[in-house]
């Protein structure tokens, strides 16, 4: 699904990573782990085509739309849109009735999958942290991505909420066969939910089976 060969990135003279190689197969749930500043977000941006590579190759299946759930958002208490309207910001707008009906059906389907159906009319500004994360996830899912990238989505969340969100992602991964790349600092979540960890170390990436990861790799 994703294949990265000899990928390097430099900002000016500063090396971010060099000759990185890894692949992610369809339906996998993989975590991307590494210290702050190791280049995780840069790598993600390159996968999405938002950042230029210095050298190397990135191959992604042609039909695979990527859904990206960014880490930070500025949603304050006064934020006006309700959850439903926030999710559809990412949906193509159409004047055609048939297209609009299709959009509506898709929205309901996504709200259902992300357990937001009953909350869809709540202003996002008034939603809890966990509900917000679900809304971000739903927005990323609205264009039927085959790959989902979560950028530290569980950071600064309460433990219960964290597991709820991860259960949801895991469900999507299994039922819908969505490939998930999960950027995290969380050892427990990696151990519990993912198949494999991609570890950023010394400008390189090593793929480690989740059975053989240890807590000190996350420090």
């Amino acid at each position, binding site marked *: 699904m994703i294949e990265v060969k000899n990928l390097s990135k430099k900002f000016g003279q500063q090396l971010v990573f060099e000759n990185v190689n890894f692949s992610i197969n369809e339906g996998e749930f993989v975590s991307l782990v590494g210290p702050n500043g190791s280049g995780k977000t840069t790598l993600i941006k390159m996968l999405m085509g938002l950042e230029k590579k210095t050298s190397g190759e990135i191959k992604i299946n042609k039909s695979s739309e990527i859904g*990206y759930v960014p880490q930070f958002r500025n949603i304050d208490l006064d934020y006006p849109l309700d959850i439903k309207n926030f999710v559809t*910001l990412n949906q193509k707008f159409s004047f055609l009735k048939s297209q609009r009906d299709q959009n509506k059906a898709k929205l309901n389907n996504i709200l259902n999958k992300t357990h937001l159906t009953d909350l869809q009319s709540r202003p996002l500004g008034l939603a809890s942290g966990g509900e917000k994360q679900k809304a971000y996830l739903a927005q990323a899912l609205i264009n039927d991505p085959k790959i989902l990238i979560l950028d530290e989505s569980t950071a600064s969340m309460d433990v219960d909420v964290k597991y709820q969100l991860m259960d949801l992602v895991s469900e999507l991964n299994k039922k819908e066969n969505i490939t998930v790349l999960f950027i995290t600092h969380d050892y427990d979540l990696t151990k519990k939910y993912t198949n494999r960890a991609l570890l950023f170390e010394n400008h390189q990436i090593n793929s480690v089976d989740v059975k053989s990861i240890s807590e000190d790799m996350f420090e």
Partner: protein
Amino acid sequence: MFAYEFMRDAFIASTFIAITAGIVGVFVVSRNMSFLTHTLSEIGFAGASFAILIGISPLIGMILFTLVSSIAVGGLSSESSRREASISSISSLFIGLGILFLSLSSESSSYATNILFGSIVGIDNSEVTQLILLAVFVILIFIIFYRKLSFDSFDHVGAKASGLKTKSLSVIFLVTLALSVSIGAQVVGSLLVFVLLTLPGATAKYLVHSVPKLIMVSVGLSLAGVWLGLYLAFVTNWPVTFFISTFEVIAYFLGLGYKNWKLSH
């Protein structure tokens, strides 16, 4: 009151101005650009007085100044922390320049009052046509870029993540904002044009929860304000801007009160 041609002109012009300001205002508020809008109206004042000094139409002067500076400010300060400071410094400079241009030109001070505070008798027939054309242009841009501008304005992070070209969208938005300031100032004056460009949008935020509804409420409030303002100005001979700003401020606080009441129930 429609027996008078100047009232008909003022009414038609204000209607288009209110629709434009109502639409643009929703995005001004969601992009947190109220302060920039305030500054742009001051820059517009400098533009208009410059136009008077060199003898061209004040509207053209305003458009020129606000367009150039909105794009400059937008490019200068994409970081919000830097934005505030750079905007206030630019704003001070332009108010100073506006005063200088006015004092250098030979026009009477009533002309300056018109630019600053607006006037319903200030618009003639050819200007009405110009205003309508500009307003229609702004509205068309919003129809064309509706989805992308909505996404970027209501969820900048998400829009960027989905690969939208947010920098170009920002420039497009600033252009429409500059045009809206320039046309709005013709009736309510450059000192208070930001009332129309921020308050109806801010009030709508407390009442409804989707982009189309925000636009409808904002345009509605903006229209109600200018129509009521024109009528009362005609009847009382008091300045139209006074009525418009009072109406919009009251609507804003009612909206805020409604939201708080709803939260506590």
